[in-house]
């Protein structure tokens, strides 16, 4: 049944007849990569001017389910390395699963917040002014799990447990704080560095040792139409140009 899928051309609705000449690459990427990957792709597209390179950001869990059911993605950049490994176990991955980044979290408060996170770090969350604290849902979001672990390891979890509100993903968690509905949030460093957030608040970067490593892994999928281009993209991402951008957007590099 797996074989069936490989010759099944799901993308039969591809419009142009000259598609054979055109090189295409469709990437499914975790939402937290949005800003970094957009910049990575600027350079990569410049290298392959004729290629049609598309990227879809979304929940890694959804991508897992969709790829398992024949979604026409060539490369999967997951927020959690467990998902591409799961795909590999199903035999859907070409080559090896690769690590491309390690996610980091910060405690973020709006600029006018009375909370002194920059000085006191997580301790600030104990203050009464922190009535609501937003984290991503630890049940399924890697950043949520990291946030919960960090709260526990910093010894504030029991105090703040009642104040937690859960976002569906890290972007929604950020919106809770941004809108003022929550007073503080634990979000991805990548997001805190995003233009829309950077100016609006203060962040305290949680030390890497306060939570388990959030290894972000990816894979090239067997169904890739242009596996060569997919490999070139992986190499570009893992190469110096890619890692520099990822680093700038707050992703630690896996080898560090």
């Amino acid at each position, binding site marked *: 049944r797996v074989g069936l899928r490989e010759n099944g051309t799901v993308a039969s609705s591809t419009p142009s007849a000259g598609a054979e000449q055109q090189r295409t690459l469709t990437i499914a990427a975790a939402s937290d990569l949005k800003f970094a990957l957009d910049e990575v792709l600027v350079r990569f597209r410049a290298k392959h001017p004729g290629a049609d390179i598309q990227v879809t950001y979304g929940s890694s869990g*959804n991508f897992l389910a969709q790829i398992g059911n024949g979604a026409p993605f060539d490369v999967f950049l997951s927020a959690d390395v467990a998902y591409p490994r*799961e795909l590999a176990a199903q035999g859907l991955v070409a080559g090896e699963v690769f690590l491309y980044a390690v996610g980091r979290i910060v405690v973020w408060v709006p600029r006018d917040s009375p909370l002194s996170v920059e000085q006191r770090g997580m301790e600030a969350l104990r203050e009464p002014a922190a009535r609501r604290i937003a984290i991503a849902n630890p*049940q399924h*979001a890697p950043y949520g799990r990291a946030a919960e672990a960090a709260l526990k390891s910093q010894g504030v979890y029991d105090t703040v447990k009642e104040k937690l*509100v859960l*976002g569906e993903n890290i972007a929604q968690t950020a919106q809770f704080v941004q809108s*003022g509905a*929550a007073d503080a949030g634990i979000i991805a460093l990548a997001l805190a560095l995003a233009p829309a957030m950077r100016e609006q608040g203060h962040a305290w970067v949680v030390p890497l040792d306060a939570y388990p490593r959030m290894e972000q892994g990816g894979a090239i999928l067997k169904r890739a139409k242009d596996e060569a281009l997919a490999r070139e993209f992986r190499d570009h991402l893992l190469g110096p140009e890619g890692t520099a951008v990822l680093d700038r957007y707050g992703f630690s590099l896996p080898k560090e």
Partner: protein
Amino acid sequence: MDRAAILLSLRLAAWTTLLLLMLGLPLSWWLATSRWRWKFLVEAVVSLPLVLPPTVLGFYLLLALGPRGPLGGAFESLFGSTLPFSFGGLLVASVLYSLPFSVQPFTAALAGVDRRLLEASWCLGVSRFQTFLRVVLPLSATGILSGMVLTFAHTLGEFGVVLMVGGNLEGRTRTASISIYDAVQALDYASAGRTALVLLVFSFLVLALTYGLQRRVWASWPTRS
């Protein structure tokens, strides 16, 4: 299976349906009977909440209801607490979002009641309000029921707006649909399936009971003229 979440969902759906019955019926009656020439603009506006993706609508609601929003600020200074992340907030959001599901079928149903029957009632000395209760409502029961069913079912299943405004607080704002969604996201398909099944079976029972019991005595398909 998440019992608390299911109970919360039912509570939310019941309240939303009730509130929309109370708010929607007067609005629908106005829409059905008014001869105001710009009425069609109001009709169009009522359906607009549907057009936005729920999470986005939820986001805008969050901005409006949050302490920095215009409504939220006023609400906080009045009641000392904010609406987001509370059952009240969920309710406000659900009512707003489900408005068209009530108002549209209600209006169509109310507009179908023969005006002469109202006139007959008025002539018998019965007030407009009593006439509404004793003539209009029974005669538009099918359409009103259909609006209530849509509202109820949709509130059970809605999750974008609720998630955004509610914050997924266990036992307080985590509804069954959020719980199922979470389980699916966590790849815990078995648990999602169980909760979904319970929700489906329960809803099916409620709906079947509603339709089954609906006294068809004055239904529109009589044996004779």
